[in-house]
């Protein structure tokens, strides 16, 4: 399963912009070394479609392009961003005014604001910042999934591609 030179993570434009503006350009990411695990034919690691950066990117891009008002992924992202704001407020990273800003922004954001971005992260520069999520949070007990709680913007690249 040793395939770690690059890590990939799909996030939304809104989550990216909020982290840039309010969290000192530090980003919370779930990532995996497999861009599209289907291409590995299941040989290297069990990374189910729900954790595949490429699959997540495609389904989010499709829901955004369909302007799907009931998109599960978009609603999931809204709540995820709110949870992040709640945590950052408790950690003292943001103040009450900024917390209110984020809650208001999430409420007013429109569907295109949730378009996907692909983060490309060199493993060598983040190895000391990565942790494994608890087993109950992983899509599969053996899946290669990692969390980076505070990833500085200068340690990764952002790609947006058309579908």
């Amino acid at each position, binding site marked *: 399963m040793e395939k770690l030179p690059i890590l990939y993570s799909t996030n939304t*434009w809104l989550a*990216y*912009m909020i982290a840039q*503006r309010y969290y000192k350009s530090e980003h919370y990411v779930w990532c995996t070394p497999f861009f599209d695990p289907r291409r590995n034919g299941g040989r290297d690691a069990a990374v*189910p479609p*729900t954790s595949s950066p490429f699959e997540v990117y495609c389904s989010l891009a499709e829901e955004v392009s369909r302007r799907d008002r009931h998109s*599960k992924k978009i*609603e*999931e992202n*809204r*709540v*995820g961003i*709110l*949870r992040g704001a*709640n*945590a950052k*407020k*408790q950690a003292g990273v943001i103040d*009450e005014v900024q*917390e*209110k*800003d984020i*809650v*208001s*922004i*999430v*409420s*007013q*954001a429109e569907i295109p*604001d949730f378009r996907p*971005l692909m983060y490309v992260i060199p493993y060598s520069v983040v190895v000391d910042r990565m942790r494994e*999520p*608890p087993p*109950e*949070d992983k*899509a599969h007990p053996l899946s290669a999934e990692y969390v980076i709680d505070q990833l500085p913007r200068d340690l990764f690249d*952002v790609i*947006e591609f058309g579908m």
Partner: protein
Amino acid sequence: MSVTVPQSLQQSLRKETLIDAGYFVIRTLRNSGRGYQNPLVSTEPDENVRVLANKAISEIEQQEGMPIASLPADRINEYIAVLEDFTRRTYQRAVGHDSERAANILSEMRSSTSTD
């Protein structure tokens, strides 16, 4: 039978705990919908959040008469939708909402098209 927000979440007083617990209940339900064999509340949050989230999951299971892992996908999605709405509204009520300021910030963000 319509889906309702578990009582334990409705009665929770501390906003910080409630928002976190709501998020982790949703995450557990979503993992169940993704086919996790034994979906459990994450051990990541503080204990008071875990306790509240576990209580809310137990209430859902009691109301439905089955473990969440056995719930049909449609039913899980109904719970997730209700909880997402509840979490958002609760947070907004707690901290307030400034639509004009949010619109201005969003407009400013959108005009900065670069992600460099």
